[in-house]
Each structure stands twice: as C-alpha cells, then as structure tokens.
C-alpha cells in the first residue's frame, strides 16, 4: 500500500542542536496515528515537517500521487488576531481557492461549534482560539489532518466534540496524525502510536503497547 505521507530519513537541526534526528515515518490512508513523548521530543517538529511548514535540513518528505490535501493545526493557534473567526476562515478559504468560500467557512465553523463571529480572534478565549485553529485545519475537508495537541486547551465538551469528529473522519477512511500527552486520547482514537524522545523515534506500536512502555 502506498503511504499517503512518508518521511525518509528526515531531520531538522538548528545549528548544532538536533530537533529531530533522521527519522523514517509512514502514514497509511485511513490511519489515525498519535505521536507521544515528553516536551521537546520532536513531535511538533515532525508534524511541521510533514505539513511542509518547516524545510528539513536532511532527508525528504514524500506524498502519494495525487498529493493529498493536508490540514494543519499547530500547537499555538495560527490565525489573524485582528480578524473575526469568520473573516479568518473565509480569507484562508479564498486563498485556497475553494469553490464556495463562504459556505466552506460556515461548514467548518459549525463543525467546531464556533459562533462568536463579531469578536476579533485575539479577543477569544484560548479554548475558542484553538477551536478556530482547528476550523482552519478542517477547511476543505482535507485528506490528512496534522494536529499538534489539539485538545490541550479545550473543555471536556469541546474535547468530546473533537474526538467524535476525528473518529467520524477515520470511519470515512480519512487520515490524521495527532501529537498528544494524553494516553486516554491516544487509547480512544489511535490505530497506531509512535513514541519520540530527544528527537528520536524510540518505539512504535499500538496505543496500549506505547502506554505500557511509557509506564515503565
């Protein structure tokens, strides 16, 4: 089976500091993979490299043909603070040249349940900014979602909404990679877990296997 996204010996260095050692990673269609590991393990770096936000200093990232559409939600919300949630989503929808920018914006705002349309994004609570961040990642219903700690600042209700959404997408055969510290999240959602420590992939397996390894 051809992977949707694949990292081949991909690495990222900042001068002499290694953020991610040469790493191989494959993402199959319909998978929901979680990246776990302590702070600074390289989870966000790997997601950024897969998303094409960060250029690798070594190796390469490949994708299937035709390339999949990829939605990305970084750990810190990436949005224009002086625009309202709707203005943010509509702007990115237009930049992505979606056929119906207004309709697409409405759809993703409904998906994350964000209604504060008159407020500027910078005035939203941290949780609502994260919902907007997720809405932007969901624009155009991408084939692959790359989410960096998406539930970290969500309240339980919104977290459940997100999990439900991700499970529905998985059921439709859509793909996702999540970085998380939550073993519960990993166990509830993931088909596979990858553990990183100090910029190295140290273990791969089922969420239960990784949870056991982490407990040790």
């Amino acid at each position: 089976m051809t992977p949707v996204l694949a990292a081949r010996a991909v690495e990222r260095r900042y001068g002499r500091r290694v953020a991610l050692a040469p790493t191989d990673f494959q993402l199959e269609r319909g998978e929901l993979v979680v990246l776990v590991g302590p702070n600074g393990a390289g989870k966000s770096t790997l997601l950024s490299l897969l998303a094409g936000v960060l250029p690798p200093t070594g190796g390469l990232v490949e994708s299937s043909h035709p390339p999949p559409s990829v939605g990305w939600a970084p750990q810190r919300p990436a949005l224009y603070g002086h625009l309202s949630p709707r203005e943010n989503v509509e702007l990115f929808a237009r930049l992505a040249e979606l056929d119906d920018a207004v309709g697409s914006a409405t759809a993703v705002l409904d998906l994350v349940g964000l209604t504060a349309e008159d407020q500027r994004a910078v005035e939203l609570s941290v949780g609502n900014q994260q919902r907007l961040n997720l809405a932007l990642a969901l624009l155009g219903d991408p084939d692959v979602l790359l989410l960096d700690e998406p539930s970290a600042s969500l309240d339980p209700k919104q977290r459940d909404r997100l999990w439900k959404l991700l499970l529905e997408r998985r059921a439709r055969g859509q793909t996702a990679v999540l970085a998380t510290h939550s073993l519960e999240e990993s166990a509830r959602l993931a088909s596979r877990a990858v553990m990183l420590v100090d910029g190295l992939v140290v273990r791969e397996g089922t969420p239960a296997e990784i949870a056991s390894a982490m407990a040790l």
Partner: protein
Amino acid sequence: MAAIPLLLAKDLRRLARSPLLLAALVVYPLLIALLVGLVVRYAGERPRVALVDRANLPQTILVGERRFDLKRLFEEASEVDLVRMSADRANRELETGRVLAVLTIPQDFSVRLRGLRASPRLVLRTSTGALGARVTEKMRALVYAINLKLQKAYIEANLGYVRLLRKGGSGKIGRSRLTVIGLERAERELQALARSSDPDVAGPARELAQFVRQVNGAVGQVGEFLRATANPIQLDTNARAGRTWVLSAQVQAYALALALAFVAVILGAAVVTAEREEQTLGRLVRGLIGLGTLVVEKIVLVALVGTLIAVALALGFGLVVEIGGVSGGQPWARVPLLLPGLALASAAFGALGVLVGALAREAGAAMLLALLVGLPVALAGVIPEGAFAFSDWLRAAVPFTHAVDLATAALYDPSPWGGVVRQAAWLLGLTLVLAGLARVAARRLLT
C-alpha cells in the same frame, strides 16, 4: 497572484482596526516634519559668542562728527548672540563649548576708532571644527555690517575736511584745530589780484586763480569718488514674503523622505514579522502562497500606505504654504508627478523594512533593527557629495538620496522629467535589489 489583493485587503483591514497604530502612522510623519523644521530653525539660529570688552566701550562714541551707539551696534548684531562676560569666564565657556567663540575688544579700540587713522582691531577666538568656521563667517558678516556704518561716518568726516578746504573756516582734523581761508575764497582773492594794473602781479595771480579753480573743481568731486571707492558694488535688500527655510522646497523634500524612511522601514519590518508572530506564515507557505509573493505583497502594502501618508504630508505642507501666503505657493500642478515617485520611494524603503524584518525574525528585534537602520539610511542620504572617497557610492546606495532628489525635481525643477525619471529608475532598481535580498532572507522566517 490572486492572493496579493486578498492579503492586501487583510493587512489594510488590520491597520484600520488598530487606531493607535493608524494614529502613529499619521502623526509620526507630521512629527518628523516638525522636528525637521525645528532642526532647520536651530541650524539658522545665532551662535552664542562671548564678548570681552577690554576697552570698556562708552555708551556712545564720536567718530568724525557722528555719534555712534557702539554698544548697541554689537548687542543688536543679528548674526550672532553676543553675551558680555569677563575674559576668564569667556575662556572657560569656550573650553566647555557653551560659547562657540570669544570676541575681544582690545583696550585701544575706542582711541583708534576716534583717531580715524589706524584701523581698530577686534580679536576673535573660536573653537576648532565646522562650528568654529561657521562662527568666523558670522563674525565676518558682523564686522562687515559695523564697518559699513562706520564707513559712512569716516566718509562724512573726510568730506567735512574737504568742505573746510573748499569753503574755509575753522575746524578740526584729527586732534588739530585749524583755520583756513578755503579754495573758493582763495580763488576770489586771486581773481581780484588778477585785475591788478601791475602785470607782474596780475599774470601770476591769473594763473594761480585758474589753478585754484581747477583744484576746487577736482576736490568738489572727492565726495563722489569716496563713496564710489568705498562701495564699488552696493546690495539693495528687499525683504519679501518669500519661503522661509522651514517652508523651503528643500525642507519639504527632506521631510517627505525622512517620514517615508522611518514609516516605511518600520512598517515593512512589522508586517512581515507579524505573519511569523501570528504563526500564519506556516499556513500561507503550505501551498497557498510562496515566500516571494508574500514579500511582494508586503512591499506593495507599504508602498500604498507610505504613498497615502506622504501625500497627506505634501498636502498639509502645501496648505500651510497657501495659508501663509508664501510667495511661489505650493506647486499643486506638480503633485501628480510626485505621486509615482512617492510610491516608488515607499516601495524601496518598504523592501528595506521587509529585509530587516526577515533578518531579525522576531517583531521586537525587527522594530529595534528598523529604527537602527532607518537613521543611518537617512543620514547617509545627507552626506555632501564628494565628502570622502566612497561617499557618492554610499549616497547612491540608499533610497533616501533618490527620494529627496525625486521630490525636489518633481515639485520645483523647471524641467522635472529628466530628474524624476533618473531618480525613479534608481528607486526601482533599489526596490528590486532589496526585494530580492528580502526574498532570500524570508526563509529565516520559517525557522
């Protein structure tokens, strides 16, 4: 390229929603213009010069037959601000730079002045360097002005002697009192003798009378000669409501360029680092737009905002000129010619700002760097031509010089096209080079 209008609209909306930033963008250039005006005013101010009066000048002094209020002549000198003080204090203040020069009136000044023979002397000591040279020029102007007034007195005194010689009577020449019969009376006396029946008396008397008449005629023209030789060229001054320095074409061009230099460089650095600060750069470069397009969009944004601000400044300046009834007025017809130049200048400065922002990456560092870069860029533009070996290269390499020259040409040159096109080409070239560098540096924003 369809992304550029979308991002432009977003950035303009963002500016419109930041009242403080918007106010700063409008107020800042006005402040710059005001500061330029103040600097110019300071530049035109009278230098402070110590006056050490060793002659203890009396309130008035008699030169020839005219009485001079010499103290007032010095104190009302418009060229410098003369401050009376002791010699010791004057020396101290010259050393500490509180005065730029010390003008000493020697003890024998009044005596020499009254004597009308040897020229009285003033002694000027200045600080070294450019300011000292400037004070020397101002003092020369002061001495010239006083000399002009004294010259009239000297001429009047000398004409008094001539009058005495011609008309006769009693008078003083220097300190000597004397009584003379005068040329006119001498001629009359000789003509009387010429009518004598004694040919030995009448003949020489007639010749002498003719000689005295010739001398009298020649001496009668001495006044004209004296005035002519004292003032071979005379300057008639006629003060009109002309442009002051503050409202001069040069200051207008400098104020425009200076305002653009700071606003555009800072704005360029701010808008590009804002994309990184808000993390949106990551979203944009994931296939939505390239870094090159982003750099172009930011430069276009700065060009747009910079042009609006510069036009507002030019219009404000023009209104002040019109309301002030300054002669010549604002060349309104030239404003359309100025517009493309302002846009190009804004773009060049904006490209520099984007480059600075890309190099600095973080907003705080970018702002600081933009300020640090803006100042030398402006100063490099005001280095006089040929000041040192590479000064002309340096001047040519910064947009400031070309922005000033373009604004001056567009507004005030009788034939502006040559200057405008040449400077516009320079600004376009600099914009392209700086934009290229900014595109290369923009990769740093992703890390």
